[in-house]
Structures are given as C-alpha cells and as structure tokens.
C-alpha cells in the first residue's frame, strides 16, 4: 500500500479552502494507495488559518510568507520527512479536479515514471478554457522547454503534478522560488528524471483572483524564459 500526500498550498484562500478540502475528501482512493493531505498556509493575511482551525483542516502554517515556490517546497519537505511514496501538488483555489488523481498517479504507482504533469491539453477533454494570449504563452513555454531539454510537455504551467520518492527528495532541496512550474520541469528533465504528461480535468477558479495579473504576465514570461535557459545550462546528470 502506497502513501500519497496531497500538498495544498494556500495563500489568502479563506473562501476556497474548505470547499477544496471537502472536494479532496470526497475522493475515495482505490485499494492501491492511502490518501493524506496537508494544507500549507503561506502566511495568509486573511482568515485562511482561522478557517482551517475551525473546520479541523490539517494545516501547516508557515511562520512567514515565502511565496508559492517556498510553500510547495515545504510540502515536499514534509512528504520527505514523513516517508510518503508519492506527493501531489494540488491548488488550494479549487482549480484541480480530484477525480483526475488516479490517472495522475497511475504511471508512478506502476513505476513507469518519476514525475507526472497534469495537463489540460493532452486530449482536450478538460473543462478548462483559457484566453488566447494565455494559450499562446503556454505554447511558447512548451516549445522553449522542448528546445532546451527535448521534453514534450504541452502544459508546463500546470500546478497539478505528482512526484515519486526520488523526485520528492530532489524537489525538497531544489525548488524555484516564484513561478516554479516550468523551471522545475526543466530541472527534473536535466537531472534525468522520467516525466510524463497525463490528461486531467481543471475547473475555472471558484473565487478570488488568479495569482498572475495582466502586467505580471510580461514579467512572468521574461523571468520564466530566463530561468528555463539558466536551468538548461546546468550539467546533465549521468544516470
């Protein structure tokens, strides 16, 4: 029996966090694994911590705000310290569909790959529809990753991902600080981890604002491109 941990980073998600956790708990895993979750409260200024205490939600509060990268990395550290076999990143804002979890972790349970990326675009069955500009940006990042590392990932910005023990140990000590998803994919590929993209379902955001506004997206593209190029220049690990 494998132990699976859902890492749910939450920053100012008082409106969404209970729904998200209820949604998670509604999922009954098969006989193949046991499911746990941990909400990482990234120094929220709203009532996220209070909601978690009131509702009895399992919550690991950071003593100060670290940003999404630092929060998710704390989840990986927790998974590592507590000996979980698989760690899954799951957004606290209700975008990710827990029904896709089995599909996401299946290749890892089978020992076929080390890391899976939950993608909205593998076969187009996801409910998620995004704007043209956003798709263009994702296409561009996907192409950039393919050029520098040879890996074909159609949805590199997806935050719905799963890692096995080996990948957990790597990510616990190597995780980018901001906009970490595409960068960490390149790092994993460079280090010789086996990655696979899996079709998952995602919803539109339930409440609150997306963490990336229009003007930030310019900075986002620039920073992530630079990070991908930087990471790609790291030496390839001999496996």
């Amino acid at each position, binding site marked *: 029996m494998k132990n699976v941990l859902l890492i749910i980073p939450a920053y100012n998600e008082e409106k969404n966090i209970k729904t998200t956790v209820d949604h998670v708990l509604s999922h009954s895993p098969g006989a193949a694994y046991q499911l*746990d979750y941990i909400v990482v409260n990234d120094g929220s200024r709203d009532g996220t911590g209070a909601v978690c205490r009131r*509702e*009895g939600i399992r919550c690991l509060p950071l003593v100060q705000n670290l940003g999404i990268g*630092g929060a998710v990395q704390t989840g990986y550290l*927790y998974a590592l310290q507590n000996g979980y076999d698989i760690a899954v990143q799951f957004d606290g804002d209700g975008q990710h569909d827990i029904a896709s979890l089995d599909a996401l972790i299946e290749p890892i349970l089978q020992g076929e790959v080390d890391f899976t990326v939950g993608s909205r675009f593998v076969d187009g069955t996801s409910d998620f529809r995004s704007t043209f500009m956003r798709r263009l940006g994702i296409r561009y990042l996907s192409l950039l990753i393919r050029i520098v590392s040879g890996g074909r990932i159609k949805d590199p910005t997806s935050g719905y991902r799963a890692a096995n023990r080996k990948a957990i140990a790597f990510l616990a000590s190597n995780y980018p600080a901001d906009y970490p998803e595409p960068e960490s994919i390149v790092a994993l590929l460079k280090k010789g981890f086996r990655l696979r993209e899996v079709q998952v379902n995602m919803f539109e955001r339930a409440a609150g604002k997306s963490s990336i506004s229009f003007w930030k997206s310019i900075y986002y593209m620039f920073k992530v491109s630079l990070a991908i190029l930087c990471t790609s220049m790291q030496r390839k690990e001999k496996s």
Partner: protein
Amino acid sequence: MSLHLRIAMIVLAVGVMVIIFRSVNKKHMRMQYSLVWILISVALLLVAIFPILAQWLCLLLGIETPSNLIFLLGILALLLLNFTQTGIISKQSEQIKTLTQALSLHQYAQEKEETHGDEKSGNKEG
C-alpha cells in the same frame, strides 16, 4: 586636481572612516563587510594627499584628467560592491527560506504531538 576637490576628498574619506569605525564598534556593521569601505576611503585619502598617484595612473591609462579617473574608479568600485551585495542578499534569502521551512515544519510536528489527531484527516485514518 583642484585644491577644492582634494579638500573635499579628504573630508569625505575621513568622514567615511569615522562612520565605519563607529558602526563596527556599535555592532551595526560586521568587520567583514566594513573592510571594503575602509579600503575605498584609504584610497580616496591617498589620492587626495598625493595627487601624483592619480596623475601617474592617468598617464598609464590614457585618461585626460585625474577627476575623470576618480569618477571611473568610483563607479567601478560601486558596481563591484553592488554585485557582491546582490550575491550576499541571494544567499541570505535562501537561508531565510530554509530557516522558515525548518521552523514551520518543526512547530507543526510539535503541535501535532501535543493535540493528537482530532483533525479532519485524509482517508488514511478516516
């Protein structure tokens, strides 16, 4: 180099040295980080007292006036200082992140030990 510039440089250099030594003594600044400032002010002082040093360097580098040389060296020194400080800041951000994570994980583990699972858990215990 005009006498005015030389006097200004001497005053500046001495002022900087006084401030640096006081800061180090009051533990506002680490000795390690103060060295570079002391070196800069000593260099400034030397050039102000012996302008021939600057003139000689100017001849060597093909710079027309000593004041230009001083500006150039000043800008280069500041760039270098800024560069090393960016490195220090980055290293410290990483250290602060690691500390925050270690402390948060530790506090959580301790709290869990004290209250023992009346939390809404995953399907593992439920």
